């Protein structure tokens, strides 16, 4: 695996939806359960799309809301209007 | 190497100068091979402390809690002072024998029955 980026999310309602969206949108992502948390590793680059999470949650979800659910991350960050991306330069 | 500082010539107080200890020096003692005593012990001792007092009163007060201490013969112990082999003389003070401020004394006592 090329150097993985990773994100660890709370197992809250929002956090689980975000994790599900990541798995759907990033085919090479791997999901690891921990007590009260979910860790997702992905080679090179991982994208969280606001639209995907909104669809899963059944409400408008803004990617900046990630701040409510994230526990830890690894990689450089790019925040934009519709998405939140982790990558290595 | 000098510390990087806003102004040249930076210096601050040396907190453990010997003058701060009211006539005592700091001396560290360590009974080797007995790590139930987790680390060396810090003692404030005047330089004129007789070695006899260290060996006869102070070290026992610290180490007698260990059952092994009952068999210890300090006369047969191996000593190091500040990284060098040391043969302390009972009749003299520690200061006369090279124990200075923040000196480290390490000693090994033979297991019972050995030389």
């Amino acid at each position: 695996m090329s150097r993985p980026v990773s994100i660890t999310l709370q197992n809250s309602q929002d956090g689980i939806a975000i994790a599900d969206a990541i798995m759907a949108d990033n085919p090479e992502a791997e999901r690891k359960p921990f007590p009260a948390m979910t860790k997702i590793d992905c080679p090179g680059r991982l994208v969280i799309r606001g639209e995907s999470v909104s669809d899963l949650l059944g409400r408008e979800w803004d990617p900046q809301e990630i701040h409510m659910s994230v526990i830890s991350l690894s990689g450089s960050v790019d925040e934009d209007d519709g998405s939140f991306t982790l990558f290595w330069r | 190497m000098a510390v990087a500082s806003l102004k040249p010539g930076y210096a601050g107080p040396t907190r453990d100068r010997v003058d701060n200890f009211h006539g005592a020096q700091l001396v560290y003692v360590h009974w080797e091979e007995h790590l139930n005593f987790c680390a060396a012990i810090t003692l404030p001792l005047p330089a004129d402390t007789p070695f006899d007092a260290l060996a006869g009163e102070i070290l026992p007060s610290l180490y007698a809690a260990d059952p092994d201490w009952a068999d210890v013969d300090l006369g047969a112990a191996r000593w190091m002072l500040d990284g060098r082999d040391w043969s302390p003389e009972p009749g003299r003070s520690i200061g006369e024998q090279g124990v200075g401020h923040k000196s480290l004394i390490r000693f090994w006592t033979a297991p019972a029955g050995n030389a």
Partner: protein
Amino acid sequence: MAARKLSLKQKYGHFTRGLDWEPSYQKKEDIFPFASYEGIKVHDWDAWEDPFKLTMDAYWKFQAEKERKLYAVIDSMAQNNGQLGITDARYLNAVKIFIQGVTPLEYQAHRHFAHLARHLPGAGLRVAAQMQSIDELRHCQTQIHTISHYNKYFDGIHDFTHMHDRLWYLSVPKSFFDDATSAGPFEFLTAISFAFEYVLTNLLFVPFMSGAAYNGDMATVTFGFSAQSDESRHMTLGLEAVRFLLEQDEANVPIVQGWIDKWFWRGYRLLSLVGMMMDYMLPKKVMSWSEAWESYYEEAGGALFADLARYGIREPKYAEVAKAEKGHVSHQVWSIFYNYAQAAAVHTWDVDDQHLAWLREKYPDTFEQTYQPRYLAWRKQAEEGQRFYNNGLPMLCQVCQIPMAFTEVGDPGTISFRVSEHAGDKYHTCSDGCKDIFDHEPEKYVQAWLPVHQIFQGNCGGATLPEVLDWYHINQGADNLDYVGSPEEAQWNKWMEGRRPAMPIAAE
């Protein structure tokens, strides 16, 4: 015509770059006097790319929501006697280490990030530092609020700020942060944002927060998650700041490398107290210190430094020593706290057979040979009514300030002694790592306020132990000594007895 909405990046750009200006009648070096004395060169502050695009309105919105959620849990825990849900009262000693040792560091971080928010020349970095300053104050406050519930029922928590500034083991975290805050802004960023909050952060977070989860401390878990969401911004700041410095000028590389070497080592030594906590104070254990170090430093750190190699950065200088010591340090630090339980505001106790078995399993190469015999001997003394307390005060390392209980690599029977001479005086350190730090900047470390030396200078309330404990504000016979025989043990046993029904509930 509909109003055009600014994109996230545009909005953020206006807020940071847009509000900045070039001074026209004062010199930049007078406005930012801390910017160059460390020797770091930055040619283009505009090259700093803010990873997060958080504007103040969004910041307040999210932080307020985190607070609402957290305080609901704190209230609920208080109303429902949540303290009864922990596995055992011994667990609380981990919480005491946290409030005494870590919470005051959050406050130091708050103050110093406010300083950086003023003194960093780049607008984007100043914004990140300002938000971090407020985050750290929030962490300090939420920890105090969360743990205040335990203060109603348990000992050692009542005067943590006073103790942090005085007690022998608390000078370890205190001096760590004093060292960082008395350094310049770029060293501080490397020390705290990068080394502590990025490289080593999981070795603080996972033991305490998973430890809380495994041991029924829901309030601490909740506080932990609330803080960690801020930490992802902090760790990103650390990584990006170090990359930025390395990219700005080749001359920065050896300076940053020196800081990485120093702060890796200082952080590692500080974390040995956490290793002790996770191997000994958690009735239900998460993983061993050795496992945590392998996972969160050797594997994760390995990948990170492989990446930074492109800038000419190598792994921290004594990383191999930390790896070699991982089977030892937690036991050595537990031995310190066991030796000096009479002078600490946390309890220790004799290790039972089940715990010994776990330690043998987790430390197959070191525990049975080196540490188990000592623990069995102590347990025997305690059973005979002679629980061992060390009568003498320990020798402390001049730099990390931990009692010098660490041993030579490959020789766990021999204490690691190092010594330096400066201006006619000797200075003792526990390791090559700490000695290097002393030798590099002796003018700093000769000023160290070493608790044992201060006692002997007569600055700590008196010449006898009870006087010193009074000066520490230790409630003698309650905060200190062995857990067995303590008031909180008696209280815990009474509560647990009270939870058992007086009569059988179901038919036999």
